[in-house]
């Protein structure tokens, strides 16, 4: 009787279609990705039914954290092509007689998230390379009436970019006094239109009950 010849090699699977598919998915993800950035303070935004997406540029975002600190962000992260950030910082520097070098301005431009550094510490902050050491400087922007740096930031941001829109991103648990104060400061600078950043939720209305 002839022996049955068993295949010695494992059957070869053709992986080409799989690789094709993977590369398509990978390319798609790489092109659409916007990296999630770590904010200096954790913020859980409240929910609303609004469906209007956040604007991508011409924004001045105020981050209000749970412990009543205020952080600022221009154009949500790394700067746009028009490079407003260094101009705003240079104006701020002029006001406080601080000369920022080109390298420092570039560092400010590149900084990916919100900034909450008092202007007098800004130079030190920008020259620190280590992320952990940097976090120490993020003490929030002073907003009291003696040294209202937030008002100046808003003023210069609006001078540099007249189309800038104010966005407010607050934690649902942020106390109201700080919100009120920030709104007051903005209104003093004639900003009366605000975008409140929220997460989407569905509205539930019991129509029958109302029509009764």
């Amino acid at each position, binding site marked *: 009787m002839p022996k049955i010849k068993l295949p010695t090699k494992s059957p070869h699977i053709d992986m080409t279609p799989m690789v094709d598919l993977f590369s398509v998915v990978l390319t798609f993800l790489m092109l659409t990705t916007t990296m999630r950035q770590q904010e200096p303070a954790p913020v859980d935004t409240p929910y609303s039914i609004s469906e209007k997406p956040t604007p991508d540029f011409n924004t001045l975002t105020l981050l209000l954290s749970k412990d009543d600190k205020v952080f600022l962000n221009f154009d949500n992260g790394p700067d746009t092509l028009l490079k407003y950030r260094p101009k705003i910082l240079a104006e701020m520097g002029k006001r406080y007689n601080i000369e920022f070098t080109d390298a420092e301005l570039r560092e400010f431009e590149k900084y990916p998230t919100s900034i909450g550094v008092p202007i007098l510490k800004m130079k030190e902050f920008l020259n620190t390379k280590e992320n952990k050491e940097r976090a120490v400087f993020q003490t929030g922007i002073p907003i009291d009436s003696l040294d209202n740096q937030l008002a100046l930031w808003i003023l210069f941001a609006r001078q540099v970019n007249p189309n800038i829109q104010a966005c407010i991103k607050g934690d649902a648990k942020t106390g109201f006094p700080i919100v009120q104060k920030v709104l007051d400061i903005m209104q003093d600078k004639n900003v009366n239109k605000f975008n409140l950043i*929220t997460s989407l939720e569905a509205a539930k209305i019991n129509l029958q009950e109302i*029509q009764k």
Partner: protein
Amino acid sequence: MAEIIQEEKGGGKKKAKKHAPHIDMTPMVDLMCLLITFFMLTTAFSKAKVMEINLPEKIKDPTKQEAPRISASRTLNLILGPNDKIYWYPGAVKPEEYNSLPPVTELDYSAEATGVRQMLLERNRALFKKIDEFNNEVLTGKLVLTPDSVLKSIAQLKKVDDTGPIVLIKAYKKANYGNFVDILDEMNICGIARYTFVPIAWYEEKMVETAAGIAPTTTASTK
């Protein structure tokens, strides 16, 4: 998945290879898997939404500008209180009532009978019905409009409405930002045409404190 390719040695003439050499793609697939997982986890798919609010311009010089006058009969005052409660009263408090302040009613943020939504819808029924009918016509295809003109038409409906309440939102100092967003959201859900956010008055702080049972700590200006 590695495989060992055994070479045949000796024995007869060498055959010319007919098919293309096989490339082992396993490491490539492994790497791609890793990258895909990485990108999927770091991508923020859903972008945050924004809710717009326009606040009335600040009156910087009271001698030149006068506060707008609104009818007291249509006014509803909503005060955002501590512990996720809302206190409301209709109309306005006259100076002669400062010693015996009107009572406030307690509500919460739910959609139930105790919630602010029922109260607002009750008072805004006429306008809400109109907006709802209009939305239905758009949804069922009776009216074909672009999203922009839908929004415009609703804004127009709100503009000509003169029966719904004028809501004044005020916040007690123990309220939080979430309450503020929630109440503005309720305004949008209930289709309130006229609402705004105004600073709280000292007698309103007092009213909330009496209703919620907190020790009085008036900080608002007594103007």
